[in-house]
């Protein structure tokens, strides 16, 4: 007997995790017009930093998470300032930007492996289980849910109500026009890249706490983050929101089907691939197209 309420809960929680992991990728893609393959490593980076502060230095959990998230933001901002901004101003091609982002990703990942070792690490926190009716969950998963919802709400306010947020949306829509109307592209980009990396780092902490910390933590959700970005429509926050939950749901229902078919549950990430390819075939501009592509 399958507990569908449980499947639904898991879907929502995964949706939250994916949302945090992807928002930055989609926004920076929309703003800077190239897919940042190093984004996956911001996820890993946040998790390792949390591990450093929490487990190795024994700091208070809120302080540790705060520091880890700020450092992720710092890395995100730094990669824009030191790598992508100068490359763009030199007129680097799309392919060169993509290759550099892959290079940056490897650099971050192997730096972490060198510093912390390549083995599996654990936060050594045992979460008690909580039962709410037929649903079994843990405080961590509830925390993910609450944090993600609060962040989503704050992003919504940021993007619709503040000047900065409107500038982000205007730039994602049409960079030339935005620049012409006096928006400081660098400031907006720097903010978006930092914010995106911070959220990615946050999601990394959750991902690692839920199971374990490995150097491939972020890379393992690369497929999912790109599927969500394309399905949602590049540069669209609301697209990410919707697509994250679609993917969370398809994966969790997919796992049920996979077990029923007697296949390995590892194939859940293939579901993201199917969604990605289907998006490219059926609706390449995504559910909520923002970034306009010109001939």
């Amino acid at each position, binding site marked *: 007997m399958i507990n569908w309420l449980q499947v639904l809960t898991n879907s929502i929680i995964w949706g939250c995790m994916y949302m945090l992991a992807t928002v930055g990728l989609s926004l920076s893609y929309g703003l800077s017009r*190239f*897919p940042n*393959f190093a984004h996956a490593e911001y996820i890993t980076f946040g998790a390792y930093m949390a591990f450093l502060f929490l487990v190795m230095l024994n700091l208070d959990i809120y302080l540790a998470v705060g520091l880890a998230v700020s450092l992720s933001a710092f890395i995100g901002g730094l990669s824009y300032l030191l*790598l992508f901004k*100068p*490359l763009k101003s*030199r007129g*680097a*091609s*799309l*392919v*060169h930007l*993509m*290759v*550099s982002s*892959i*290079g*940056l990703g*490897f*650099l971050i990942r*192997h*730096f972490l*492996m*060198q510093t912390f070792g*390549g083995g599996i690490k654990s936060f050594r926190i045992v979460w008690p289980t909580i039962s709410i009716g037929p649903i079994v969950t843990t405080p961590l998963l509830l925390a993910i849910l609450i944090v993600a919802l609060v962040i989503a709400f704050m992003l919504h306010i940021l993007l619709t109500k503040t000047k900065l947020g409107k500038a982000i949306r205007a730039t994602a829509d049409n960079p030339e026009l935005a620049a012409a109307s006096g928006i400081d592209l660098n400031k907006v980009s720097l903010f978006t890249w930092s914010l995106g990396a911070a959220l990615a780092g946050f999601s990394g902490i959750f991902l690692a706490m839920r199971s374990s910390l490995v150097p491939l933590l972020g*890379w393992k959700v*690369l*497929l999912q983050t*790109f*599927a969500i970005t*394309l399905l949602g429509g590049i540069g669209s926050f609301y697209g990410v929101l919707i697509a994250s939950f679609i993917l969370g749901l398809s994966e969790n229902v997919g796992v049920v089907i996979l077990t029923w078919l007697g*296949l*390995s549950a*590892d*194939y859940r*990430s*293939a579901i*993201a*691939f199917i969604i*990605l*390819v289907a998006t*490219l*075939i059926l609706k*390449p501009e995504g559910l909520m197209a923002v970034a306009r*592509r010109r*001939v």
Partner: protein
Amino acid sequence: MADPLMYLLDAVAYAGIFGILSISLNLEYGYTNLANFGKAAFFMMGAYITAIMSGLKYPFIVNSLLAILITSVIGALTSLPALRLKEDFLAITMITLGEVMKLIIKNEEWLAGGVWGISGIASAITIPGLTFRERLIVQIALIYSILIVCYFICELIVKTPYGRILKTIREDEIVASTYGKNVFKYKIQVFTVGSAMSGLAGSLFAQYIGTINPYMFEPTVTFVVWMMVILGGPANNLGAILGAFMVEGIQRASRLFKDYLNLPLDPVNLQVMFTAILVITVIFYRPQGLLKEKIKPYEGSPHKIIAPKFMEVKSWIRRS
């Protein structure tokens, strides 16, 4: 490895195999601007097909032809949805395809040995009574003859009107299609040829090292091939091969360097970080690579300017 000469020969063999990957990427990216970030996937496919077929006691020639066939078909099919769109979509599709391929191979133990991989792959040429070193030399001869064939095929392709269209697509797809070229068709063809070559390289790799497992085909492989093309010089086939030699050399040297200085670094981490920094530096300071593309008429020479022709009546212009 104890024997320094063996270490060198091994490096030469690797450079040859990666040289094939490098010129295949050069055909796709250097000439056609197709960003194929799935090199590792096709390389892996070729290697696994060869390994599985070798387990069934088929000879190398059959295995490699099958590898070429299957990789080219899969390459064409998976690139279809992305090729109509911009190059970033192809990049995303291919990089994720590599992950899915690995997933399948890790999970289907009955087919491909799961995470343990496949061992005991027969080498292509077995001559009884050779020493280990002599066998290595035979391998190198095989690998390099295939590399040379691939090189000439690519050179031939790009120096025809067909190749001129590929360059047109690279420079400006809109121009290519407004001037009557079915861009989509050309891209599929190039992608198919590139995938086939990668499959062949994988096939050579499998029979060369004898044992393969999924961890040999991490995305770093793709990245290393990109490094070779970007360093050597896109749209220059000799440059691509030169790049393969340099990157292989740099990787081996960094390893030796680490051993020599006793650096407290993991050799793999060192290699990857070093390659990454090098790629970024090259993109910053010499985006056209070491050997630049030669912009010249691809047949006939500039010296043979057709001077007398200019003097003739402009028959075509003047016709009424």
